[in-house]
């Protein structure tokens, strides 16, 4: 499962860090770092984090199948 944060939208409210501290973290007072891939154990927390984002900047994709034709099957 994957996620990406639109860091143009992100203003460092850090609600995601409170709710899913293993996936999101603050670097300094405001800069957000995130793990772009997460597993089933974090799913519930990531859902809560994405819903809580005050600027709705977190895009989550719970689908986990690799794309046909992409690495490791080098085209």
């Amino acid at each position, binding site marked *: 499962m994957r996620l990406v944060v639109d860091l143009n939208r992100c203003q460092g409210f850090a609600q995601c860090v409170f709710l899913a501290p293993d996936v999101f973290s*603050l670097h300094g007072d405001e800069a957000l770092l995130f793990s772009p891939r997460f597993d089933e154990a974090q799913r519930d927390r990531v859902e809560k984090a994405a819903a809580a984002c005050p600027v709705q900047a977190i895009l989550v994709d719970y689908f986990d199948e690799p794309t046909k034709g992409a690495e490791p099957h080098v085209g």
Partner: protein
Amino acid sequence: MTSGTLITQITDYANRADPYPLYAELRKIPVRREDDGSYLVSTYYEVRSLANDPRLSNDTTNRPPGYARVGQPEAESGLPPSFIFTDPPVHDRLRETINRPFGPPHSPRFLDGLRGELATVVTDLLDAFEGKDQVDIVEDFAYPLPVTAICKVLGVPREDEPRFHVWADALASSLDPQAGDDGQAKAQQARQDMGAYLADLIETKRRHPGPGILSALAPDMTPADLEATAVLLLVAGHETTVNAITNTTLTLLRHPDVLDRLHKDPGLAVPLIEEVLRYEPPVQFVPWTTALADIDVADTTIPKGAPVWLMLAAANRDPKRFKDPDRFDPGRKDNEHLGFYTGIHYCFGAPLARIELHVAVPELFRRVTFSRLLEDPPPYRANAVLRGPRHLPVAIEALTA
């Protein structure tokens, strides 16, 4: 309808149960001048824009004489204003200091670590429903959980709760623009008494550090700043989350179709909680900001010095931002609501409130089979800002383990 009567109606207790038609009326003029020179801003984009505007101050000493200076303690109380009534750089310094033991970057797991204990509190509260055919959701569920939570966060002994309950009520009421001189006087007294109680507690923590953020903050803050902060967090922790939990329960019982969906899909709880924060926000409006300069917004100029009220609950129902805004729809996408405000004064306790809601709401509806609301609308508290039911009596059919 004249503009003067509209705000009177909004603050009028008779309209507490359903202020939303009044908010809809208010939105017809996005930025509305009141007879006393205050400005009411009620549409989404305008509220959002002003909440992020550096020309708007939360320090009410910027208001000309004659206007209510919400949040400013009287000189003799000896306490500074709490951080929500300050501007940067003072605001940022205070909030960052207080955040250090509370949240990221320094303490990202502090609140997460309370989930287990809070879940136990929820279990105990619901176990006590056993054998009852009716309960008051406020007294029996929504109130005890946040109180326990804020006591744990601060490190305040839970058994002292009855003492500060009274103070917290008085202080919360004083945020209401209708509180009047008597209300303000009571609040000042409560602030002083609560301050004295907390000063003792903080002194004890300084000598014998224990769990909770007061102990962690004692070395880094002046006693007066820490006291002011503790008073704010204790009051906010009391009132707002109680309203959020109660509003969620009330809203779900009024929408049996959504309740059915929640039973079939417990994962719905997460977006549903956000939708309640849009639909019935626990803080309805922020009446304590002031223009530092002339501000042009929505074809109106708010003059320098004018008190500005940001009507969050009205903005959350703005049809220009939310499709079909009066519909309670937990499936709503892109729910960028203002239930916790926005900008630098975004609710400090929001993550704690969310953790409590995430723990409480699914479990309440998993275990309890409700038959109906016993009073609809329920009786509300007087407060128009921190709006919520005083009691929520419900009939229950069954309780599962």
